[in-house]
Every structure is written in C-alpha cells, then in structure tokens.
C-alpha cells in the first residue's frame, strides 16, 4: 500500500555544474522508471521543521534505471542548504509529480524554448524526443546561460541549438523570443511545429503570443510556489482564461499556453528601482 512515490532518496552524485548551477543525482527507482519529461520531484532539505516545506525541482534526466538527475541553482534558503548535502546523505523525495509534456510524435518538429533556470525539463524532453528538435536558449550574458555541459548535451541530441545573449557575448545579440520569432517567420511549413517552453512567466507569456501569431501549438511549464506538491493545499494556483484556477503541481506544471490567463501573471515593477532606459 505505501506508495513508492514518497521515500528517502540517497545522494549518489552532487557537484558544481558551472555558471552557478549544481548537478544532483539521487537514487529514486520509482521516479527513474516512470518519470516523464516535464515532471518534477519535491525534495525536503531539512530533517527539522525549518525550512518547513519541500522544494520542487524539474527532472533533468534519468541517468540510470534507478536514479534521476536534478540541475539547480541557489535561489533561497532551501537551495543554499541543499548545496551542503554530500554523497550518501538521504533526503525525503516525493515524485515524480505533475503532468509532463505531451510526447512529440515522430513527425513533430519540437521547438524547445528555455529561459533562466527552466532548461532541466527541456533537457529531459530532448533526451527522449529531441532528434528533430531545435533549442532556443537565451540569457542576459554568457554567465547567465545554462552550464556549458548542459548546452553540449543538448547539442548532442537535438537538430540545432540557437543561442541568444542580450549583450552578444555568445550567439546572436538579442532575446530568445526574437530568435524564435525570426526562425518561425523564415519557415514556410509550420504545421508540424510544436513549441515547448520553460522559464520565467514573462518569457512564457511572450512565447505564447508568438505561438498564437504563427498558429502553432505551445506547451509551457509553469513555475509556482508550492507547499504540498500533491494537489491538496491549493497553493500553487495558475489563473485560467476560462475562469478560476488550476494547480501547477497536479493539473500542470505543463499547460497549453492558450489556457492561461497571462494578465494575472504579470511581473510587477519594483517601486524604488528606476526603469533602465
């Protein structure tokens, strides 16, 4: 009866991956056997009551039949504590959780769009269905891109990797969304294209708009603060165009971009920071 989706997962590997990211490999046979690209796990970084909640991490790959890989960076107390946990240490793991990406069929050309630290689920997707995929990844500058090892890994399994940096230090100078838009505009035949995007909400909203302009189906993986990860607490709500909310952990994190009411997801400007001209 006790589900194998909740158990203590031993750390098998944990090292710096470059550019501020860490690669963590955990022993998790159930997750390794059943995880689908787009799914995530909840990890508790403390045996104590503080920090209280588990943190969600997208699964980046399944390196073996009994292990899963997470790639993360420090964004707060929880992830900071996680960096200090060594090989052999065991963490409480819940997962795999959520609805993953709809699997691209063999005729689909996936356009993977990655922003910020959103690459892990797309990395997993590319390993399973990436041979025809084009990856579009961008950042402010070279140091804000995904780790070089991850980009290399994408290059090995996908058709092409397109990089954009706002300062032009790597790849094309500009935004990821401009790169994507230019690519789509150049394509004559788009009916076999499906976009899979993961990154900050503002980027997902922009990708959703581009997809709509080109009449292409677009799946986005939404990040939202979570408590239970199971669908019980109703904390991770995503506003829907049809009204009401869905849960990022259970009804998502992957949604058809057209379902989402992006107006409620707008990132508010910081009052005391003057907008850069």
């Amino acid at each position, binding site marked *: *009866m006790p589900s194998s989706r909740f158990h203590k997962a031993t750390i098998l590997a944990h090292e710096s991956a470059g550019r501020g990211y860490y690669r963590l490999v955990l022993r998790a046979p159930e997750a390794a056997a059943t995880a689908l690209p787009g799914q995530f796990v909840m990890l508790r970084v403390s045996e104590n009551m503080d920090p209280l909640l588990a943190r969600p991490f997208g699964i980046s790959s399944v390196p073996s039949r009994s292990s899963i890989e997470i790639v993360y960076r420090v964004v707060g107390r929880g992830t900071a504590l996680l960096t200090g946990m060594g090989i052999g240490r065991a963490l409480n793991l819940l997962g795999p959780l959520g609805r993953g990406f709809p699997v691209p069929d063999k005729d689909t050309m996936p356009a993977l769009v990655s922003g910020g630290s959103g690459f892990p689920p797309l990395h997993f997707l590319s390993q399973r269905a990436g041979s025809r995929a084009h990856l579009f990844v961008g950042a402010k500058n070279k140091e804000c891109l995904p780790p070089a090892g991850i980009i290399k890994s994408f290059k090995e399994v996908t058709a092409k990797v397109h990089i954009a940096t706002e300062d032009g230090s790597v790849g094309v100078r500009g935004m990821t969304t401009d790169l994507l838009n230019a690519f789509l505009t150049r394509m004559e035949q788009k009916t076999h294209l499906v976009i899979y995007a993961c990154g900050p909400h503002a980027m997902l909203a922009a990708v959703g708009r581009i997809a709509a302009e080109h009449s292409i189906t677009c799946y986005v993986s939404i990040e939202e603060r979570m408590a239970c990860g199971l669908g*019980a*607490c109703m904390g991770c709500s*995503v506003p829907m165009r049809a009204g009401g909310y869905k849960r990022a952990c259970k009804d998502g994190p992957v949604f058809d971009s057209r379902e989402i009411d992006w107006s409620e997801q707008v990132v508010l400007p*910081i009052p005391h920071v003057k907008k850069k001209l």
Partner: protein
Amino acid sequence: MKRIIPASKPTLSIDFAGIKLKNPVLTASGTFGYGEEFAEFIDLSRLGGVIVKGISLKPIKGNPPPRIWETPSGMLNAIGLENPGVDVFLSEKLPYLRKCDTAVIVNMFGYSLEEYVGVAERLDGAPGISGIEVNISCPNVKAGGMAFGTDLTATFDLLSAVRKATRLPLIAKLSPNVTDVTDFAKAARDAGCDGLSLINTLLGMAIDVRCRRPRLANCTGGLSGPAIRPVAVRMVWQVARAVPLPIIGMGGIVTGEDAMEFILAGASAVAVGTANFINPRATLEVLSGIERVMAEQGVGDIKSLIGKVSVG
C-alpha cells in the same frame, strides 16, 4: 518460571460528540482536500476521521497567486476558500470518502447566515456524513468568516441558526484571533454545539523587502505549522477548563508527542494539518507516535489522558 504476558494493544477509540472515532487522529480541514490525493500514501480507513476542505453554497474560485509563503517553522496561506460548492461535493467528492471506513466531517462556511444555513440543510440527511465543522474563523476572506468569528453575538446567532438546520453532530471551529477564546467557546456551547475544534490559523503577514510588497496577493494570510503550536495548546487548555464540550485540538502537530500535548491540555481528539504537506504519511505517524507514548507510560486507554496535565 515467570510467564511474560505481552501488553495488550491500547484502546484508542473514542466517542466524540456522538461521532464514533476508531482513534483520535483526524485530518485538518484545508490540508487534505477530499482525501483522494493521499489515498496512494496511506490507507484512509486507518484514520480516525477526515475533516474535508471547507464547502460553501456556491463554488468559490479562491484568491489570485501568490497564495502561500514559508515562514520560520511554518507557512502563511491565503488560498481564499477555493472549493467546488456543496452540490459538487455531494455528487463528486463524498461518494469516494464514503467508501473509506473513516468518519467524514464536513467543514463548511458561508458569507451570510442564510448561506451557512443553506449548506447545513444540504448536508443534513446526506448519507455518509458523520458531522459538520462550522468554519466561523477563516481569516482570509474579506467578508464573512472573520466578521462572524470575532464577534460574540454574531457567533452565537450563526451557530444557533445552523443548529436548527441540522441534526448532525455540530462542531464549532474557533478562531485564535480574538481576545478571549473561552468567550467564543461559551457562545458555541450556548448555541447548542456538540463539540469544538481549535485552533484555526493565526492572522499573519510577510513582506518582500526588495520589491516592497506583501508576499501574498491577499496581503495577509493564515499562519500554520509548528510555529503556532504553543498558542494552540494554550487555547485548548483554556477552553477545556471553561467549557465541558469535547475538543479537537490542532495547530502544528507533526508527531505523536505533539498530539499528546493537546490531549493532556484537554483535547479528546487531534487534527493533523500542515504536516501532511511535508509528509503524506504524517497522520499515521502521529497515530503510531501516540501508541508509542502510551506504551512507554503504561497507559491502556487514551481517554484516561484527556485533560490530565497537572497544574499546581
């Protein structure tokens, strides 16, 4: 040679306000949905009971995100009482719970006296419902909940009206955000309630210092988790000494020891809430923890410990 006689299993069953519970561990409203999400992790029939997520007359969408924020040994929530409404609860959620051999207590609320009565009438007579927990104290809604639960007359009038609308065991869930919770316990007793449950969440707030904005879209929210346990234990102790109604104690229970604090303070049963978020098996671990403490102390019947904290 002396024969070793194994200790018999301790008695955990309890009659709470007319509801037969096989053990004193229930799930707190709002932390367990309607049970289905947890079924893969625990056998629901091992629970004393499930107190479901609050139900209203009409469906409620809930608040915009962000709805949650972690705090020291706790969390704030401003979910906004999202629920599918009483009709959908009865047709789609209750049937599943009825199949589990556990008490089903329906938490409910409204924005007006008429709505509370409307929900109570719909629930009264629905098969499979063991009791009703009236939420007079939710701190997240702008109208309704908070207004009733911090006003003695409104509390009495509300609970009296709900009492008339149902013959089911009636439990009043008290708010801690009041000057003297025992006054509200007395109002609930006078209105004809069969039992009390406390505490609901404490009203709290967190601010993002960089953006200079509240962390929750609703600005304020309810604080839960281990951080609130001392307040909850204190209030259970105060209410138990003031009013002879049975109490479901809750507020940051994670272990069997935590549950025992509430029982010694005067609770006849306990509810596990936020702990379910960090461990889907928390309820059963609390239950086995209670059994372990009883075995260690040679206690045969849980009822013998209710209110047994010695003072002075």
